[in-house]
């Protein structure tokens, strides 16, 4: 099993299998963007052609990396990380907000 990887807000969890019903997500100017910076324009990005970002029906996202060489995850403010071939669930860091509470009015 591969190792879990974290780069800032992006957490990649190795999975045994990904859902059967899944669609590829189009690249943005040739790059897979796992998360965009809110203001800076910085991004957690992958350029390797061996990588594919996939989206399941519940909007869960998965990353598939084929071939032997793996891929590299880059970001302007974080060290680059090598991702081993395999399949990963893509998790974006979250913070609690009042809207998540049942006591709060939803906006």
């Amino acid at each position, binding site marked *: 099993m591969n190792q*879990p990887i*974290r780069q*800032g807000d992006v*957490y990649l*969890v190795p999975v045994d299998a990904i859902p059967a019903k899944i669609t590829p997500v189009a690249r943005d100017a040739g790059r897979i963007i796992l998360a965009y910076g809110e203001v800076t324009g910085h991004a957690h990005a992958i350029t390797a052609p061996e990588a594919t970002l996939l989206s399941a029906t519940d909007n869960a996202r998965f990353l598939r990396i084929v071939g032997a060489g793996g891929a590299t995850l880059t970001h302007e403010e974080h060290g680059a990380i090598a991702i081993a071939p395999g399949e990963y669930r893509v998790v974006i860091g979250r913070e609690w907000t009042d*809207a*998540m*509470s049942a006591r*709060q009015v939803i906006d």
Partner: protein
Amino acid sequence: MRLDKLTPDQEALLPVIRDEWLAVGLSTDRARAEAGVRAAYAAAKLPPPAIVVWLESPLQGVVGAEYLRLLLDRMAMGTGDQVEGQVEGQVRDQVGDQVWDQVGDQVWDQVWGQVRGQVGRAIWGQHEAGWLAYYAAIARFGLSDLTHPLDGITEVARSAGWWWSFRDAVLLTERPLRVQRDERNRLHAEDGPAIVYPDGWGVWSWHGVRVPREIIETPADQVTAEGIAGESNVEVRRVLVERIGAERYLALAKAKLVNRDDWGALWAIAAPVPMRIVELINSTPEPDGHSKRYFLRVPETRERRDADACVGCGASLAAVPGTAHQAVAWSYSSCTACYVPVVQT
């Protein structure tokens, strides 16, 4: 002609019309607005108003309109009767009825859905663009002879802010100089008014929550725990806490250490705004070698809107994290067993 279904070309026009009207929001063109007023009066079969007054904000407009009404009543030349019923209401209803008869429900839903939602929000219902954009679309689809009587008020809406029509006078106001929104299009400005008019009047707002000016403009380091506790409106209190940030709030409020482990420190604050915050160390050091601390808010209540399951194993997550590890794992939708990043930057 009758519209029952939009052609692909017509559908493609919808975002164009929407964007045109979104752009309308910030510029005042007095000459165009006044020409529009004359056309609107003509459509209502009224002579053009003799007196044209311009003011600089909706607030000035509301006060000015009252004053103008009194003034007109005292002048021999006219009356302070407002004629917006004729200038706008009647014309709108006539056009509306005719257009309604000739446009199928599906088309209405489609045009309204795409045009109204965003335009209405962009100008905050302040101007007429919300409903005029609908008729602009209908006119563009070939029914312009029906919508023609609206041309005057459309022109005013394109060129000015709020306006008031009297039999012998018209009062128009300037548009805002600036409107700021957050990434979700909610009114939001962190250092001043989110909407500001030429006379300085405006609206202060934090992510869509309208707040008094001082909530936004008091420097963060002058906000005190007493000041937060003393704010009676719960929503405004939360805005204050968000504005000063978790780190300063932790320092101000009497935060209690819940747990400290290898992952960081978990703090709980009971009042004035209940909060649970985990303090973590950035894994990528700054250029000078030190590592930034950062702060994340985690659930402080068991009353949750959505159930939470670990993305790794499906186990349900603790409703309220009790350790720093549980807290940071929660922020990645994981249980502590599944949140074990071996490589991190």
